[in-house]
């Protein structure tokens, strides 16, 4: 069952079209990576799904409720973490959560234990009494995540939760999100830092200039671009001759010595167009052609590259 479904969602701001007939689905239980460059329309989509923005045209349903017709039901189903953290001066961490707990009508006797559980979950139990203002950026980010979960929503919508965090905090956040995914929450998470999403997402959507370029389970997205792969081929002896031989092969688009191959280990980076079968044929041809092949390794295309390739392809 899809927990989020949009149909031809369009958002115009004056003459800019921020979203152009966006149709997407997020299956329940998915960790859905929403990827796109700056200005692609990620935040706009999320603001529509959280009832903050009324779309110019099209429909969006969250947990079965249409966002403009039944905003209250949508709000109850969604926990939203915007790309900014709002601070209230003069409130402590637990008071901050308590305030939003009240705003979501969480019953008083449930609130107190819940706040402690959430602080524990995001690793802020020791900061319970600390003023919100005094928390570090990463801590505020985690507090914000705890806030988004205060009413136990089915869906978490997180707008660039990792932005502005140091590498350590990023890893912590990623672990936390994995944990939430394992708990069965559906998570929609936007980012332009793609490698981060690669291993934690079950689904990926790539958006650019308001249009959906690709979406689906992460393996499928990877595979669809995987027909084109990068090989590291290490040869012994005459590297230049090997490079010339490879260059002449029809399925090979480019051959270059590995950039970090100063030590003369004879590694060539090959941009190869073909699937597994074609790759086997290539290996056989190399041996038959008299190349002294030491090793071949396939560098896995990471999301960053896929993303660059997909967005490049559209003029």
């Amino acid at each position, binding site marked *: 069952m899809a927990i989020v479904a949009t149909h031809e969602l369009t958002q115009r701001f004056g003459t800019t079209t921020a979203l152009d007939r966006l149709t997407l689905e997020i299956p329940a239980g998915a960790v859905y990576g929403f990827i796109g460059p700056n200005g692609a329309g990620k935040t706009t989509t999320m603001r529509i799904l*959280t009832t903050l923005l009324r779309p110019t045209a099209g429909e969006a349903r969250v947990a079965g409720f249409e966002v403009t017709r039944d*905003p209250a039901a949508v709000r109850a189903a969604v926990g939203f973490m915007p790309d900014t953290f709002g601070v209230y001066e003069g409130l402590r961490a637990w008071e901050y959560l308590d305030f939003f707990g009240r705003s979501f009508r969480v019953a008083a006797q449930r609130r107190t234990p819940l706040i402690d559980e959430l602080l524990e979950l995001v690793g802020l139990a020791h900061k319970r009494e600390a003023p919100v203002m005094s928390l570090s950026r990463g801590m505020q980010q985690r507090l914000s995540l705890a806030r988004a979960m205060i009413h136990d929503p089915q869906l978490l919508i997180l707008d660039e939760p990792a932005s502005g965090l140091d590498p350590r905090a990023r890893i912590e956040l990623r672990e936390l999100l994995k944990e939430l995914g394992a708990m069965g929450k559906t998570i929609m998470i936007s980012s332009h830092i793609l490698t981060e999403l690669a291993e934690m997402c079950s689904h990926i959507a790539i958006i650019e200039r308001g249009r959906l370029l690709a979406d689906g389970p992460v393996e499928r997205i990877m595979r669809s671009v995987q027909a084109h792969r990068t090989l590291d081929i290490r040869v012994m002896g005459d590297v230049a001759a090997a490079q010339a031989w490879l260059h002449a092969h029809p399925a090979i688009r480019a051959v270059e010595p590995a950039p970090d191959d100063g030590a003369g280990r004879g590694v060539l980076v090959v941009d190869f167009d073909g699937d597994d079968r074609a790759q086997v044929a290539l290996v056989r041809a190399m041996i038959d052609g008299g190349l002294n092949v030491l090793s071949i390794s396939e560098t896995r295309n990471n999301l960053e590259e896929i993303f660059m390739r997909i967005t490049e392809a559209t003029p």
Partner: protein
Amino acid sequence: MSEINPLVQRELRSRMRGPRAYVVITGFLAVISLVVLLLYVATIGVSGSEANAGPEIGKLLFLVITSVALVLVALITPVFTAGSIVGERERQTLDLLITSLLGSGQIVLGKLVAALAFIAVLILSIAPIISVSFMFGGVTPADIVVAFGCLTATGLFYAAIGLFWSSIARSSITATTLSLGTIVMLLLGVPFIGVIIGIVVTGRELPVWLGHPVAITVWAMLIDSHPFIALLLSLEHLANGGDLWLQPVTSGSPLALSEPIGAMTLPSPWLMNLLLSLGGTALLVRASARALRPTERRR
């Protein structure tokens, strides 16, 4: 529903923690006390020990205290509420409130009630000072009702004005400027319109429709919408032995520049002011709540 609006609770919690509330109340009382003191010293010198000096001094003190308090409330209140909603916008917490289960009406009312709680403290804090004027005699309980009626009406309505601009503006400074601008316009505009009408009307034969109850009521509403005019008219009405709740109104009578051509009975000016303020507040709260709903296409 047994729980208090969370915004009210949070506002009071964080507001009372900071020094601002105490500073404002202290400043407010200091200004009023200073005026009273100066006035007291001045009148003691002038009136000496005449027999009826007591009630006269009491009346004067009362009028001055109430007027100064009214000016201060008129200026402090809108500044207090002008930052409320736009402040959430600036802190980027407004989206969090809107996506919570608080309705836009609850957000606006929570902000208003939190501000009113403070304004009520402000208004009640002058009670001890007013009681000084009471001791001199000459001031009746009805006068006190009128004074607190006008203060309450002003606090409420002007708070709603600040709240309204706060829900629309994109920055606190804009909201504060617009609120104070609106209030200055209201305070100067009504006397200005009154004077213009007075000049136009003087010495002319008035058209008959001005004697119609609707025309009289509209005229009275315009005049009584001004808190200072309403206060002075009500106190004068009481001093002349008039009723606390009702007033006879004749067309054109507030300026008394021409022969009245119609008469009727309406609520007393301070009560008119209070009713108008309640109505105006209700309208402004609705408009503010509407401004928070995401029908807008701007951010």
